[in-house]
């Protein structure tokens, strides 16, 4: 399984948010895309997940073009972001069962319980989301994103607002996804956490990819150079 993006372009009016970015992510690996705020990371992620149609370029899964309007594609995608994406007035179990139903998961109650146990939040099932702490909500959100067992997992700044326990659960879950052969794509400005997890890293600055390489070659210090305006001024040339 391989997800490839070719020459992705996204414009917001006259501003080019993402400028001709190529990326590739393989099954059983974690790709982390770093960049300072406003580098176009989230826009890039939305194009990869099919939520936003690129102005130019294409995303392909195993050579076939990906489109957010294709239900088959959407059922294979899981999304985790810094916003929980849960309904506060519903209980944890109702939230999970709702999304499991819409994803066509058979036996949505059991699937919900399984997903909750997977993130160590089984005891929260009957509680309303609004009664939970921030960390607990994030765990439930994690369970919700995986309730339909997606093949491709996208993470949009997942570490924001996560407590240490939640971060551990997230990291464990991502490693499990890698073991299971899923494609994991992560965008974040949190270099330290991202580098530990990732197999491949890329850096985005002002909409352009300034670095793309394996995580073993590039440490956090190395990547940091590409964040700032001075380092990596050579653009693509500096990429290994």
């Amino acid at each position: 399984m391989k997800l490839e993006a070719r020459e992705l372009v996204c414009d917001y009016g006259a501003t080019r948010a993402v400028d001709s970015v190529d990326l590739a992510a393989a099954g059983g690996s974690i790709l982390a895309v770093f960049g300072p705020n406003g580098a176009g990371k989230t826009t890039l992620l939305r194009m990869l997940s099919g939520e936003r149609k690129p102005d130019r370029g294409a995303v392909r899964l195993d050579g076939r073009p990906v489109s957010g309007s294709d239900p088959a594609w959407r059922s294979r995608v899981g999304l985790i972001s810094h916003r929980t994406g849960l309904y506060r007035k519903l209980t944890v179990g109702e939230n999970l069962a709702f999304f499991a139903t819409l994803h066509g998961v058979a036996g949505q109650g059991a699937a919900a319980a399984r997903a909750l146990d997977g993130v160590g939040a089984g005891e929260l099932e009957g509680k309303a989301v609004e009664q939970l702490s921030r960390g607990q909500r994030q765990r439930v959100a994690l369970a919700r994103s995986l309730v339909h067992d997606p093949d491709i997992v996208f993470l949009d700044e997942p570490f924001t607002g996560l407590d240490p326990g939640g971060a551990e659960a997230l990291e464990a879950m991502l490693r499990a996804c890698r073991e299971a052969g899923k494609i994991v794509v992560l965008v974040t400005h949190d270099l330290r956490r991202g580098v530990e997890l990732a197999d491949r890293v890329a850096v985005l600055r002002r909409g352009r990819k300034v670095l793309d390489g394996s995580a073993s070659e590039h440490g956090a210090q190395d990547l940091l150079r590409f964040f700032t305006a001075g380092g990596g001024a050579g653009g693509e040339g500096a990429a290994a």
Partner: protein
Amino acid sequence: MTSLRWVGVIAHKDLRIEFRAGGRVVAMIALAVLACFLFAFALDRSQVSAQHVAASLTWLTVLFAATAGAGRAFDTEEEDGAFRHLLLTPIPRHAIFLGKTAANLVLIWMVTLLTFIALTTFLGLRDPGSLTHHGAIFLPGTIGLAATGTFFGLVSRHSSLGDTILPALTFPLLVPVIFFGATASARVFMERPWPEISGSVRLLWAFAVGFTAVGSVLFRYVAEE
């Protein structure tokens, strides 16, 4: 058929949230009933007979309450970003639109019923005419209101003008609903026979079915990025 099931799932989820939270329903009803209360004060009933104005007042009250409610129809979807995840489920876009419209419709029915009761009580209307006929007029009328409100409720969510833009977008469209609804209801209040009313009701259905269909087709353009 499966599509209909998704509509049910979404509507059920929305209504469950609405009745648990309560805020939006109560605010809509309060707006409607208080407006009726004020109308009773604003009317000089030695000059105007209640029977002549009841229909217009009912429709305008329902319109304002429905519009106020529609501006908040997507609040629960957006407060923690659930809508993004909803759009990533494989269900068709029109099912989301129809499900949310159905939930909105239930709230509008409650508002309509209470408005009707409040107005006839406050204005001292002893004989409001055939209730079946009133129902037959409000059914298509409120479907039209719910569909336009839900559709443009999402549009206005993304506008920096917020709820204030909603009437500017929906009121020009709703002229047929208000016109045919109010004239038909007025005739029921006057106890006119059904053949004098059925033409308006047919046009109300035309709007309701037409806008629901158009909204279903166009919803993906307002929901997707």
